[in-house]
């Protein structure tokens, strides 16, 4: 009888909403930056305040920009995987150390290992504002022509790397390790 089928129908409707809801997470919010040129910046390096690190450093390469801080739990969580990516992926990872304490940040890298080619020290968070950062950790994938290809909010994990990053990298590079634009392999 139809009335015994009512519960399953209601449940199915609810299920559709829940399924939609899963993908309305803050984590899947599309950044307005994606597809646009990455904002340019130049900041003192974390290791050496006299040296500058900025968007020029990764011009012409496919690179990752990872926003991190020692006060952020998610950064702690993704750190081992960043180290692995630095070893194996062939894509340079640049760090944006956000609203952090320089000594604490250096100590963190010394203790846990340093996955970054270089880290920019953004103590005031000005650059983070330009990049539309609204929490840490966040990871940007930047293409050879300097456009933002993808933005991930939250800890970077293997399944996310495979699902969201690898297809875009493959499209940009064709192969791993990613050849540089000038052809210097």
């Amino acid at each position, binding site marked *: 009888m139809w009335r015994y089928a009512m519960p399953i129908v209601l449940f199915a409707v609810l299920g559709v909403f829940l399924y939609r809801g899963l993908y309305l997470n*803050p*984590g899947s*919010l599309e950044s307005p930056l994606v597809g646009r040129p990455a904002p340019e910046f130049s900041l003192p390096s974390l290791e050496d305040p006299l040296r500058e690190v900025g968007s020029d450093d990764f011009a012409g390469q496919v690179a990752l920009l990872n926003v991190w801080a020692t006060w952020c*739990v998610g950064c702690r969580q993704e750190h081992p995987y960043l180290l692995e990516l630095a070893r194996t992926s062939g894509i340079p990872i640049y760090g944006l150390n956000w609203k952090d304490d320089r000594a604490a940040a250096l100590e963190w890298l010394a203790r846990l290992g340093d996955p970054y080619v270089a880290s920019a020290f953004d103590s005031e*968070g000005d650059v983070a*504002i330009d990049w*539309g950062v*609204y*929490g840490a*950790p966040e990871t940007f994938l930047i293409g050879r022509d300097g456009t933002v290809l993808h933005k991930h909010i939250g800890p970077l994990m293997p399944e996310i790397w495979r699902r969201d990053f690898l297809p875009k990298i493959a499209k940009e590079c064709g192969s791993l390790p990613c050849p540089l634009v000038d052809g210097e392999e």
Partner: protein
Amino acid sequence: MLFVGVVLCGVAVSAAFALRAFNENLLYFFSPTQVVAGEAPTERVFRLGGVVVEGSVVREPGSLTVEFLVTDYANTVPVRYTGVLPDLFREGQVAVARGRVDSSGVFTAEEVLAKHDENYRPPAVAEALEKGRAASGQ
């Protein structure tokens, strides 16, 4: 049949009451940009969310009244609140205030909430901040 009728009536009446309560108690969320643009209602309570601007928290010494600015990076709204602030309320962090805006554009909060989570922001605020960023033209 009478019985079923009574039950149905009861359900209908309570559903009507519930919907009324629902409409009266919905809390809309507005970003500072929307408030500045005058999209927020002046006669009813809503929620305002954004980042507390660094250095903007001003308190009359010894008083419970505190004023601060809330921004979505595009626009900024002044907030006034009298009462005890939550533990996690901090400059540079996200806060959500519930209250009304007056004709001069000052938001008077009845309640201020700060998020417990240090990594993520409430989706409504996050979205507002993203839009604010986009609107201010990088």
